[in-house]
């Protein structure tokens, strides 16, 4: 097991290095000059001084080695061209809100998806089942930004049952710890629900098919023969049977959640990694774009690694060799 974990960690590190290199190459090869002054009155030597401060006067291979060395040895991602802030500090502020949103969305997606899948599996091919299947397909097909905008317009602006944006209320720093946590929760539930909704349909369909499939297996028939109730068969044994596939879906969800978070953060003014990335792309803030890409890749790699490791524990058919 330890060798397996080490091997996977090594592969993850190599993959991460490849992502870093590709990201740097793509950004470096893009046309145009970073920090090109838009004001023609700025003398060339002034602009050159600024370029030298950021190391842009060096040849590209030297820039790459400096950047990679600083990242690998010191976790130093350089300074934002736009704000001058250390990039690690900027993303350190942005990462927790994104992790919170993505985590809550993951929870929402599984709660909703498994719930709907169970409902459908109880009465296969009934009207209810058909409704759940159609609804999950529709939800899967709807773009997150549209669902988000509609949710804000109806629930926040129209009905006033949720805040329209942000992560906290204005001057939320004045609140005590419990009130502050509740304040964040009040701002979190709607974006998390919207973000989770897109994948919930997929989870529902997987849950339904796994549960129906389980009922036809020997284990399912044996459980029924032992006189267990239908509810117990599906909830306990059926879900245990479906768990490995559902877990695999979690690793598939991670990149979708992260890309969805960029959209959801823009719609709900959620101050996370997606917002920071969007601002950086808009202003060609290369150090931030590179770091945000790397953070995103790292999150996906880690999620996939964790899902694989958990799978080896949950699914008796999988053995580590």
């Amino acid at each position: 097991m330890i060798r397996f974990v080490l091997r996977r960690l090594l592969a993850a590190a190599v993959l991460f290095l490849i992502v870093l290199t590709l990201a740097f190459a793509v950004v470096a090869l893009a046309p145009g000059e970073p920090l090109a002054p838009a004001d023609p009155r700025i003398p060339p030597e002034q602009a050159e001084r600024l370029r030298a401060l950021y190391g842009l006067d060096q040849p590209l291979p030297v820039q790459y080695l400096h950047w990679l060395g600083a990242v690998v040895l010191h976790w130093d991602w350089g300074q934002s061209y736009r704000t001058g802030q250390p990039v690690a500090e900027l993303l350190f502020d942005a990462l927790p809100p994104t992790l919170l949103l993505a985590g809550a969305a993951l929870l929402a997606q599984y709660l909703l998806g498994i719930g709907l899948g169970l409902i459908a599996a109880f009465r296969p091919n009934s009207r209810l089942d058909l409704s759940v299947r159609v609804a999950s397909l529709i939800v899967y097909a709807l773009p997150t930004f549209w669902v988000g905008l509609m949710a804000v317009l109806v629930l926040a602006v129209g009905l006033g049952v949720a805040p329209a944006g942000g992560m906290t209320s204005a001057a939320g720093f004045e609140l005590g710890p419990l009130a502050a946590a509740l304040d964040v929760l009040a701002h979190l539930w709607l974006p998390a629900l919207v973000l989770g909704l897109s994948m919930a349909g997929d989870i529902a369909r997987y849950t339904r098919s796994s549960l129906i499939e389980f009922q036809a297996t020997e284990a399912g028939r044996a459980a029924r023969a032992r006189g267990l109730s239908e509810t117990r068969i599906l909830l306990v044994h059926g879900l245990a049977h479906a768990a490995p596939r559902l877990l695999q879906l979690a690793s598939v969800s991670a990149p979708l959640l992260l890309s969805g978070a960029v959209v959801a953060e823009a719609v709900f003014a959620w101050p996370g990694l997606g917002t920071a990335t969007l601002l950086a792309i808009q202003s060609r803030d290369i150090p931030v774009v590179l770091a945000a890409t790397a953070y995103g890749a790292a999150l996906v790699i880690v999620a996939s690694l964790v899902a694989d490791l958990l799978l080896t524990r949950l699914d008796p058919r999988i053995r580590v060799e």
Partner: protein
Amino acid sequence: MIPVAAMRLLAAAGLAAILGWACASDTPRDTTRLTVGMRFEYPTPNELIVQQTLGHKAITSQLLLPLMNEESDFREGPPSWKPALAETWEFSEDRLVLTVRLRAEAVWSDGHPVTASDVRFTWQAQTDPDVAWLYAYAKEAITDVEVVDERTVRFHFSRASPTQLADVAPEAVLPRHAWAQRPFAEWRSDPGWFFERLTESGPFRLENRTPGRELVLGRNPDYFEADLPRLERVVLRTAADSAALTTQLLAGELDVVTAIGAADAQRIEGRSGLRLHAYSSRQYTFVSWNTGQPRFEDAATRRALALAVDRQAIVDTVWRGYARVGSSPILSDVWARDPELEPWPHDPEAARTILAAAGWRDLDGDGVLERNGEPFRFELATFAGAAARWDAMQMIQADLRAVGIDAQLRRFDQNALLPRLLGNDFDAAVSGFAIDTSLDLRPTFHSDSIDGGHNYAAYANPEVDALIESVATRLDPLAGLEDLHRLQRILHEDQPMLVLWEPLTLAAFNEELESVEPNALSPLANLQEWAWR
């Protein structure tokens, strides 16, 4: 059982949070505070080490005052200057020395007086190579800043010019006693350090900041203007997207939003309790025709292009009326604008006649005109990211097609297109300028600015060069008015650039607020006077 209990607890907490939030939104308004939505990033209060934006400048000016503030009276005449930290100022007879007297009552929020040494320190920082302030060129005419006594400072100039006050006045005076502790060479390495050593001279103090989310400004009790600011606290909230801020305004979570897109304006119009305020942005958007290319080399063809484009339709459709059709690089609400200058009308028939007279014919019957065997087909480029501009370009493309011209639209990254514009390596391009009130047309129309300057169209006209130079040398801008009018009329006839529109900036606010007067200089202009009725 445990998961069920945990889920119940979670559900209860969620419900409590929602109810709590809903109840909180029903509480009576606290008239001592205000919540403003605006797009900003505020990594440091030191404006010399960040890319200057209107938002950053607007916030900094609440915390750190300049010597003087430019007034927004550019409609009536050359803009005047209002004293801020300076009490009085006076030029020497030859205008090579400017003596500024500071206010006796101006103090930093840590109790230190604002002194002439602070003013000199600010100039040293602005011009120090290690600070690498991008706009250091603005100080090149200042040869020294002399401390005469604690409250008196003298600016020495190498030459007199009409912009001397603008060279001296607009940047924040920095607190020497607090910021000189860090060598200039280290200023850029840690922008956050300046928050730790921030001491304010403006109407507000920085009470709290949550990076990427909000800044909380509190009333500065030591501010020298009596009874100002009128609000105890202003919370500035930000978002990456202005539409999200508009939504929060509609939901009642914000009291003011400083920049609303034209597309969102209709969500505000007619809403009870909200007021929409449109004001000049001192910007214009234009098409540059590369006059170095044979198809754009004659003024008659360029005038025909102006007649072919229905700019009023663009303003009505894309900008929903929140823009003005342009006709001059001197904007329609600036004092020096020629009042008799009217935009070229939309007249496709007249355009066709002029094009035919200029030798353009569709000889092969493919719907595109030709001259000397070359079809009138070109690339119309712009910067990526401006959705309204792209929409307008599609309308321009259709208008040009109607008179037999094939414009192929392309979007480029900012850093990819700008070098091409500066090097005159393009066919035609749509871009925009944000301008100050100096009325200096040298960077955009003087033949000196063709190579590497913003004279993208490569336009060269000796009379225009002479007029630009004449205006620049007059110490009294009003004396150059006739030359400015003549200049505008020549550019109108020659059409090296087609000014498309002058966008308006839109702000929306709760109508219970009074004295909210954002302007082109600052979305938070006169913030210290804002108050609830």
